[in-house]
């Protein structure tokens, strides 16, 4: 490994990427969340505690949004007019605030695990 030219880097990158493309585990619960006019709909989600939650975020705005939550440990850009998936949990019972970083004034919501 004396030299690592760009070609080798690109190859390594694609191999790493390819390895991670293996089939993914399924979550226990699917939740739908819509972004419209820089607002989350619904603004409050109730889910079961202690299991994995798959949040499918449908961004209907033309502009991208970043779904972010420190409590849920999630950070994901969802391009305009497209869907993104975030898997969280298993969660302890409690309230977990989330927001859209690109429009944090309006895009606010909370996930309640119970």
């Amino acid at each position, binding site marked *: 490994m004396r030299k690592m*030219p760009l070609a080798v880097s690109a190859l390594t990158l694609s191999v790493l990427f390819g390895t991670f493309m293996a089939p993914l585990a399924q979550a226990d619960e699917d939740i739908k969340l819509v972004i419209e006019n820089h607002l989350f709909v619904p603004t409050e989600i109730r889910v079961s505690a202690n299991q994995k939650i798959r949040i499918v975020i449908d961004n209907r705005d033309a502009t991208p949004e970043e779904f972010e939550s420190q409590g849920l440990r999630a950070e994901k850009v969802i*391009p305009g007019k497209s869907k*993104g998936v975030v898997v969280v949990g298993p969660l302890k019972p409690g309230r977990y605030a989330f927001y859209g970083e690109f429009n944090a004034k309006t895009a606010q919501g909370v996930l309640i695990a119970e």
Partner: protein
Amino acid sequence: MLSTAIILFREVLEAALIIGIIAAATRDVVRRGYWIAGGILLGIGGSCLVAAFAGAISGLAEGMGQELFNASILGLAVLMLSWHNIWMARHGRELATQAGAVGKSVGSGSESVTVLLTVIGLAVLREGSEVVLFLYGVIAQGDTSAGAMLAGGALGILAGVAVGVALYFGLLRIPLRWFFQATSLLILFLAAGMAGQAARLLIQADVLPTLADPLWDVSGILPGNSVLGSVLHALAGYDPQPTGMHMLFYAVTFVIVLVGMRLAAPKR
């Protein structure tokens, strides 16, 4: 306007700190400025490409393409930083002694510089695509506040760059005796922090288990979104609520690179 400045400051900070450290670490390398500028330009170009294909990348791997792509970028950066540190452990001393005498003799350092060029490109690429997407969103919205938001964005980017420049000049003040140890240590923490971030993304993509969630919680003492928290996050991968897997990746990378550096160091 202020919120835009803060968003872009946070996005730019990490890449700026990495570039500051690398620019300092390669202080004696001939035409280093071209390498660094090249890395930044490649990163920006790559960011625009990734932003343009963001929808397609996101759609891969059952909606987890973005996480896997970013984890791959981080994984590659960790490999390159580790390699650089081990290389420097072997050759750093001779570089330090020769560099003062003949500037040209650091030609052998250019191998390592290629690696660092790529790391800079990757660092810019990692956060850059989000910056491009965000700015695109601001312009696409086209409302009256767009001008103020763009001004705020420019301010945030400048502030981030300023922190990187400050770190660079701060590092240059370190006496040459300790200089390579200091920059190697910083790069060691960078690599471990990036490995931890990659673990975090792979957990988010549901590829890896958390092992413990969280392993500990110090968010009450030093929140991750505070200024100090953000800087420590960029420099050393600080996370107030890390998972077990995060710390496992962190510790394993740290130990492997440290052992590699010890083994590579010339015997005296």
